[in-house]
Each structure stands twice: as structure tokens, then as C-alpha cells.
């Protein structure tokens, strides 16, 4: 066996020195003769092959490596020996202890001065790098699988707005193929116009919601999250990773939630309205029954009242001028009839539930006539002054009911000042005066009846609208509630103000309706 360890004596020192240096090099180095038998192996190579140098010299790869590797190594060695240039191979080598390394092996054919051919080889152990590379590949495969399957749109673009990667979910969300996506303007589907500088725009770590568009129509609602600029993200220069979370259903859910909330509020309001309506219906039902009863009683009472009045009238005609002294008695009979009739009228007004039967009336002239008729029935000391400001304005009112309204208020004013006019202690006012005025205001028409009587105490003002409340010895307490009811039937109301000692003012108001259709 020929080995380089048996070196010529003339160069023994230099060769020894070189071999000693080679022996301790961290790089694995071996030398084979032209029969591919090992003639040198440094310590690093011995570690790879798993045998000391002494037991390795004179042997070949076939003595250490598996057959398939030997075949590969031998082919490579022979190729090197046949050529004059160095060769590099990626080799997988399994040592005798079973450990495997990835090796970048460089091989070179050399010829010594005496014409012998050798093959010098070095191994760089790439096992760690290869393992890392495999790990990276596995990791990348996992990430790619994730990107391909995750239900989130992913778009990676560089700082030139060029798409590096778009995942299938984003394409699915946009209804595009990859090639359509590549040729489309990103600004189109983001609904933000031309996409120049898009990456720059999204380079801040932003998070926003936007509509995703296709052919000008909104196709989805997305939460867009930008990674901000990424350095070294597998591309040259900076890039940005944008993710799209489909929030359409969340938005729909929010809409549904909003609608349910709104409907709940409406339902709650409607239940309240229904309750109020039910209560109103019960009240109206009772009132209708009461109204019917009152109407029947009114009819039945007014007939005998009519008989009493007519009989008293006949009696008066018969005894007049005969000095019988019954005039006062006859007058009292008639006053009693009037009082009974007033009570019946107030009961009817208060319990009437039928809708107002409106007619178009020139209000001021109609009111003047009613006031004139009523003034004739009031005690003569009461002065009535009218300041009517509506001109020839026609409005729709139920004249029968509204006249009851006016008569009630005017009578109340008169009675507050002078009573019925026949009892001196009821005279609470030196110069009793009622001022009636009409005016047009933003809320409609106002009819004010003011008196200069004693006024109404604060305590009584609070109770004045309560049915059956009265301060009169002979009142039903239904006058003001009846007035309010009539005004309500005209969609209006009543306001009462008073300063004790200075008088009271009753203001009836109702919206102007200048046609019967409006009033209906």
C-alpha cells in the first residue's frame, strides 16, 4: 500500500509540518489515491466518517458508507479524476455510527512531481444549515397553508404597489381570479379611486372598515388591518401586508340588532299606546253609556219642565193685571225651570261623545250674536264689551256645542261678579264688566273672556277642571269640564289665569280649520 505518510526523506520536515496543519484544520479533508483508497484523513474527516485515521488508511468509501452513497461518491470521484478542474457536490453521508450529515464536498485531482494522481477532498458540514433550511421550508409550508385556507383576505404588496401575494379568500371575497386581481386597480375594489401610493397610504399601522366594491356595487363590508411597513418580508425593499376580515355578516347582524332594538322600542311604545287606548275605550265606553243615559233622562226631564214652564206662562197670562200678587212666584217657577235646564245642558255637554258636527261659520259675527243673546239674559249691571279681531274669517266649528262653551264661560264670569243678580251680598264687583276678544295666534283662534270680579284663588285654580268641583251653592261642577270637553272635540283647549282681587281670564283656543274636510 502506498501512502503519503511514507514521505521522501528529503522533504520530511516540510511535509510533516503541512500534514500536521492539515490534520488539525476544522475543515474535513481527505486524500485518496487513484484507486480511491484513503491515503490521508484529518481529524475532522475522521469524525465525519466515524473511524480513526489509522483504521481508515488503505480503505475506500465502500468500507464505511452505505452502498447507494458509495455509488454516488465513486461516480463523483471518477468524474473528478477524469477532469482537471475542482468539483463541488452536495452529498449526504452516513457515518458508521449511523449519523448523517449534509456535506458540501469539494474535490480536486492533483498530480505529484513523481506523476502520481491523488484526489483531495474537503467537506463542509451543512447539516445544521440544511436542518434550519428544512425547518424554514416546513414553517413556510405551514404559513402558506394557513394563508391559503384562513377565512381572512391577505394581500401582500411592495412599496411600488405591486402585488406579491394575494390569498384565495380575498379573491373569493372579491369574486375575482388571480389574474383578474393582478390586472385590476386596487383602488377600484377598495372604493378609494386610483391606487397610486396605496402601499404608502396603508403603510401606517391602520385599522378601518370599508366597503369592498365590484363593478361599482358594494359586495362586502371588510375590516382592513395593515401591518405597516415590513422590512425583509421575503421581498426586496419594503412591503406591507394587508388583511381583510369580512364583517358583512357582523354589519348585517348589527343592522338586525339595531332594527330589533328599534322595533322593541316601538313595541314598547305601542303597548303603552294600546294600554292607553284600552283605558280610553273603557272610559269612552262608560262615557257613551253615561251619555246615552243622560240623553234619555234629559228628554224625560225636559218634557215635564216644558209643561211646568208653559203652564206657568199660561197662568201668568191669566192672572196678569188682576192684582193677585203671584208674579214673583211665577218668576221663581220659571227661574227654577231655567236652572234645571242648565243642569241638564251641562250634563249633556259633559257626557256627549259624538264627534263635533262642524260647519263653516264666520266666527266673529256668529260669536257677536251668541254674546248678544246671552247678554240679554244676564243681570243688567253686567257690561259686556267685545273686541273681535278675526274679521270675516270662516272657520269650521260645531256651532251648537261651541255656543254652549261660550255661554258657560260668560255665565261663569257674570256669576263670579254678581251672582244671579238678585242677591245683594253676591255683588262682588262695583262695575262688573266682561271683555270678550278674539284673535288669531300661531296655534289657531283664541277666544278670551275676562272679567274684573274677585278672581280665583290659587287653590281653586288647581281644581277648576275637576268634574263636580264647584264653589257655587247651586252648581253641578260640570260647567268647566264640559267646556274643556267641547274644546277637545275641536282639537283645542282651555287656559285659565287669574289674579285674586283683579279678575279671571278664560281663554278657549282651537286650531283653524277652514274647510269641513280639514275639520273631519
Amino acid at each position: 500500500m502506498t501512502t503519503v505518510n511514507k514521505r521522501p526523506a528529503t522533504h520530511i520536515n516540510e511535509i510533516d509540518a503541512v500534514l500536521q496543519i492539515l490534520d488539525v484544520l476544522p475543515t474535513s479533508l481527505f486524500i485518496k489515491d487513484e484507486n480511491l483508497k484513503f491515503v490521508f484523513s484529518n481529524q475532522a474527516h475522521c469524525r465525519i466518517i466515524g473511524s480513526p485515521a489509522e483504521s481508515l488508511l488503505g480503505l475506500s468509501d465502500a468500507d464505511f458508507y452505505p452502498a447507494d452513497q458509495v455509488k454516488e461518491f465513486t461516480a463523483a470521484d471518477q468524474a473528478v479524476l477524469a477532469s482537471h478542474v475542482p468539483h463541488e457536490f452536495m452529498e449526504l453521508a452516513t457515518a458508521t455510527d449511523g449519523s448523517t450529515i449534509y456535506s458540501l464536498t469539494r474535490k480536486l485531482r492533483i498530480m505529484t512531481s513523481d506523476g502520481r494522481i491523488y484526489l483531495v477532498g474537503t467537506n463542509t458540514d451543512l447539516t445544521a444549515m440544511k436542518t434550519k433550511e428544512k425547518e424554514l421550508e416546513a414553517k413556510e409550508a405551514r404559513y402558506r397553508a394557513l394563508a391559503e385556507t384562513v377565512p381572512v383576505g391577505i394581500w401582500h404588496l411592495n412599496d411600488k404597489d405591486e402585488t406579491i401575494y394575494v390569498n384565495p379568500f380575498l379573491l373569493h371575497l372579491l369574486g375575482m381570479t388571480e389574474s383578474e386581481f393582478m390586472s385590476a386597480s386596487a383602488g377600484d375594489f377598495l372604493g378609494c379611486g386610483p391606487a397610486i401610493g396605496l402601499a404608502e397610504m396603508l403603510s401606517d399601522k391602520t385599522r378601518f372598515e370599508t366597503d369592498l366594491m365590484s363593478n361599482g356595487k358594494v359586495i362586502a363590508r371588510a375590516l382592513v388591518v395593515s401591518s405597516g411597513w415590513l422590512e425583509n418580508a421575503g421581498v426586496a425593499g419594503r412591503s406591507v401586508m394587508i388583511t381583510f376580515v369580512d364583517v358583512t355578516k357582523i354589519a348585517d347582524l348589527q343592522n338586525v340588532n339595531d332594527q330589533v332594538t328599534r322595533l322593541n322600542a316601538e313595541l314598547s311604545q305601542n303597548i303603552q299606546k294600546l294600554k292607553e287606548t284600552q283605558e280610553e275605550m273603557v272610559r269612552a265606553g262608560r262615557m257613551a253609556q253615561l251619555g246615552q243615559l243622560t240623553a234619555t233622562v234629559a228628554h224625560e226631564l225636559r218634557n215635564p219642565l216644558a209643561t211646568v214652564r208653559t203652564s206657568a206662562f199660561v197662568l201668568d197670562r191669566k192672572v196678569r193685571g188682576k192684582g193677585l200678587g203671584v208674579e214673583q212666584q211665577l218668576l221663581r217657577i220659571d227661574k227654577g225651570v231655567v236652572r234645571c235646564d242648565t243642569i241638564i245642558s251641562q250634563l249633556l255637554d259633559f257626557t256627549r261623545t259624538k264627534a263635533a258636527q262642524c260647519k263653516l261659520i264666520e266666527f266673529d259675527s256668529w260669536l257677536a250674536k251668541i254674546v248678544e243673546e246671552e247678554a240679554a239674559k244676564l243681570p243688567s249691571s253686567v257690561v259686556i264689551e267685545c273686541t273681535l279681531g278675526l274679521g270675516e274669517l270662516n272657520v269650521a266649528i260645531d256651532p251648537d256645542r261651541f255656543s254652549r262653551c261660550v255661554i258657560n264661560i260668560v255665565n261663569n264670569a257674570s256669576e263670579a261678579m254678581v251672582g244671579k243678580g238678585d242677591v245683594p251680598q253676591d255683588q262682588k264687583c262695583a262695575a262688573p264688566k266682561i271683555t270678550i276678544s278674539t284673535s288669531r295666534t300661531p296655534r289657531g283662534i283664541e277666544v278670551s273672556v275676562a272679567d274684573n270680579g274677585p278672581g280665583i284663588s290659587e287653590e281653586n285654580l288647581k281644581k277648576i277642571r275637576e268634574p263636580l268641583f264647584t264653589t257655587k251653592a247651586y252648581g253641578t261642577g260640570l260647567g268647566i269640564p264640559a267646556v274643556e270637553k267641547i274644546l277637545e272635540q275641536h282639537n283645542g283647549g282651555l287656559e285659565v289665569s287669574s289674579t285674586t282681587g283683579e279678575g279671571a281670564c278664560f281663554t278657549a283656543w282651537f286650531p283653524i280649520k277652514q274647510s269641513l274636510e280639514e275639520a273631519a
Partner: protein
Amino acid sequence: MTRALSILVLDDNVDNADALAELLSMDDHVVKVAYNGQDAIDAYSSGKFDLGFFDVMMPGKNGVESFLEIRAQNPDAKIYFMTGYSADDLVKKAIAGGALGVFDKPVDLTTMLDAVERAA
């Protein structure tokens, strides 16, 4: 008073009808009384009246139904109504059918006598 009139008073309330008839008679008018609608119709068929005062509500034919029948035969019949309930729909029907007017019960007799005076 200018002249005596022939007047028919229709009221199912006998006291009412009689009291009114007595009052009108005091002014020398010739007053006939009917206590139901059919009697009033028959009276108009057999006689002539210058004026009539009809109650509205009564058993059988009410005042307005009777009035409308009378007007069908006597289109010039002049009739006033008297009612205890002024908002009665029947009264509106009577006015639409040509009644001269309506007096609310208890009737203001001075006003009623004025109306008689105007007709005389």
C-alpha cells in the same frame, strides 16, 4: 195679533200638548191636538193647518216621520219642531225636509209666540 191661525200641536206628552194648546188658544188661534203621529197625519189629511208644532220623539211614528208623510201630501205645510235633545239626528232630518225651525224644550214661549205672530 193680525189673524187667527189654525194650528196643530203634536206631542205624546198630554200635559205638554194641552198646556201649549191652551196658551195658543188664548190668542184666539184654533188649536187641534194630536197625541201620536198617525193622528197628526190623519188630521192633515182631513183638514188644513196654517202652522204645526211637533214633538220629535214619541212611540209609533215619531214627529219627523209624521212630518215627512204630511209634507209629501202637503208640500206647503209649515211645521216647527220641539225637542228635549237639540243634537238629535232626527231634527237635522226634519230641517233638511223643510221644517221651519226647532225649539228646545223647555220652550222659550216668548220666542215661540213671536214665530206664531210672524206666521199670522
